[in-house]
């Protein structure tokens, strides 16, 4: 196993990877998020749940530095993200965050292996051996040369997860990772997240799936842009 995919053997001392202080996001007169404050320590597995329109995706966009808050503070690994330029936000994303999407978002004309290598390329240097090992890690070593159109939904999501892990991020953010999967593939992906948690990864996922609520060690419920419950 190469360094790029080496897994953490033990949980690090609990320091906050994410710290939100009165975070808010408005779109014109609409307040999508209001006064959101919580901290997520390293190695935690947190599910963010809530009905449609509760602000889950808006929160995930802010956490992944794809959007900017209009109020409050967001510290990632203790680093304030307010006032960062687009280039600095991009650097944070490639160095500290691994993203898993509901719609997988793989580049259609690249193979599974090349999709992973592209993420490596943006981070530092493409390494085919490390990318292949990451695919084997999610059980897709034999599908390395296949394009997304030749893979099932579950396989595409596993490639997406492998891509999120390839640069050893401190945080994995997932948006409805089982939303487009059938039951069998949902189980495979959930098992994969469970395993990642056991290995000490910090995982925050947005989901409607109550099963994830049971797997996650903590569930934050949003309603009308506010934290309704956190336990």
């Amino acid at each position, binding site marked *: 196993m190469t360094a790029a995919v080496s897994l953490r053997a033990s949980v690090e001392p609990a320091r906050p990877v994410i710290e939100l202080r009165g975070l808010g996001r408005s779109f014109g007169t609409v307040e999508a998020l209001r006064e959101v404050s919580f901290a997520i320590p390293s190695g935690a597995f947190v599910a963010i749940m809530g009905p449609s329109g509760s602000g889950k*995706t808006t929160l995930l*966009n802010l956490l*992944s530095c*794809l*959007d900017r808050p209009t109020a409050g503070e967001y510290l990632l690994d203790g680093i304030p993200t307010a006032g960062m330029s*687009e*280039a600095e936000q*991009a*650097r*944070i*994303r*490639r*160095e500290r*965050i691994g*993203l898993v*999407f509901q*719609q997988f*978002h793989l*580049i*259609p*004309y*690249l193979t599974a292996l*090349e999709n992973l*290598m*592209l*993420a*490596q*390329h*943006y*981070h530092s240097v*493409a390494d085919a051996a490390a990318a292949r090992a990451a695919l084997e890690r999610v059980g897709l070593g034999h599908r390395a040369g296949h394009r997304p159109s030749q893979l099932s939904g579950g396989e595409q999501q596993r490639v997406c997860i492998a*891509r999120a892990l390839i640069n050893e991020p401190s945080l994995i953010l997932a948006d409805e990772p089982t939303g487009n999967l059938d039951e069998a593939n949902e189980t495979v992906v959930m098992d994969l997240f469970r395993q990642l948690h056991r290995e000490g990864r910090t995982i925050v996922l947005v989901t409607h799936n109550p099963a994830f609520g049971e797997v996650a060690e903590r569930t934050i419920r949003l309603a009308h842009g506010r934290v309704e419950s956190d336990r």
Partner: protein
Amino acid sequence: MFWRVLRQSFLEGRRRKVLAGVAVCLAATLGMALATLSVGVGDRMAQELRSYGANIRVVPKGESLSLGSLGLNPLKGRETLAEDDLPQIKDIFWRNNIIGLAPFLNAEVEVSGARVPLVGTWFRRDIELPDGDPFTVGVRTVAAHWAVAGAWPEADDEVLLGAALARRLGLGPGAAFDAGAAGRLRVAGVVETGGDEDAAIIADLALAQAVAGLPGRVHAVEVSALTVPENALSTRARHDADKLTTAEYDTWYCTAYVSAIAHQIEEAVVNASARPVWKVAAGEGAVIGKMQVLLAVVTLAAFASAAMGVSALMTATVVERAREIGLMKALGARLAEINGQFLAEAALIGAAGGLAGAGLGALLAQGIGRMVFGQGLAVPWIAVPLVTLAAVLVALAGAAMPARAIARLAPVEVLHGKR
């Protein structure tokens, strides 16, 4: 990885890229054809325009004098040049640009009781140049616009009659008449030039020399030379060559301006004053200059439309691949990396289209050359890399607007399907 992504992405949207390549190729074809034409046609046009008359007139120095405001010249018609000096005109620095010359000697003969001008010249003759090469000279090499009804004179006693004189004397081709000191002459043809020759008998130079009693002498020589259009430097040189710097003088001397060639003829022929026939020279320069401006404007328009074509196709590509671009941004790609990929695609399209266009343009120019001038044009090979470079720059310019669209694209919007 950059090249791998570039290759795959290039192969992915082949149809659109081929279309963009065709747009660039068409512009490059036009650019190359016009570059070839503007270089080749300049020479060909100059040759064609030469058929409308000589552009340099060489006379004895005394002939060009003028006294007082009335321009009186007591030496007019008395000074002559030596016939033996004529080959020297073809021995100057720009000897290869001298494509024809003809001597003229004026005399008078009596026909039917009236004094009639007799102009002696060479109709067509091969002379030997100082370096031993043969050279065809004569009025037929400098005055192709003379309209001759009948035939050009071949024998020594054959002449051309000016159209006005022929009408007055009631003579036509094949007729014979007595011409006083010139003896009995036969009319080979009747010529219409629109000039003084229409009222004269045009005979062989030797006959006119015998009548005038000036053996081996000529009054004037008309020279047809291939020239480049006049510009500010040649105009200054025309006014006062002594005021040019050494470098300017060298540039002027070594460029085929009509004034530079005239200057060199004066250096080569003893007692000669060579004067450009400005009406012809300026008209020629104006025609070629205007043609080159027209070609440049058409080329620019072609490249501008190619840039717009590339821009439209690349913009469509950006819209089509918005999710992919959004994903790259979400993965932390630098803007320069994403733009670099699209610009590299544009540059490849430009290079491929430009090279293909340069080849097609050279062929097109050959076709036009054969159609218009009856022979192909020399391809300026330096234009191939220049046209290709222009095509690459045009494709990159076309990609500039899509690049701005890439910068504005928000990954949040495209990844969540809002676009």
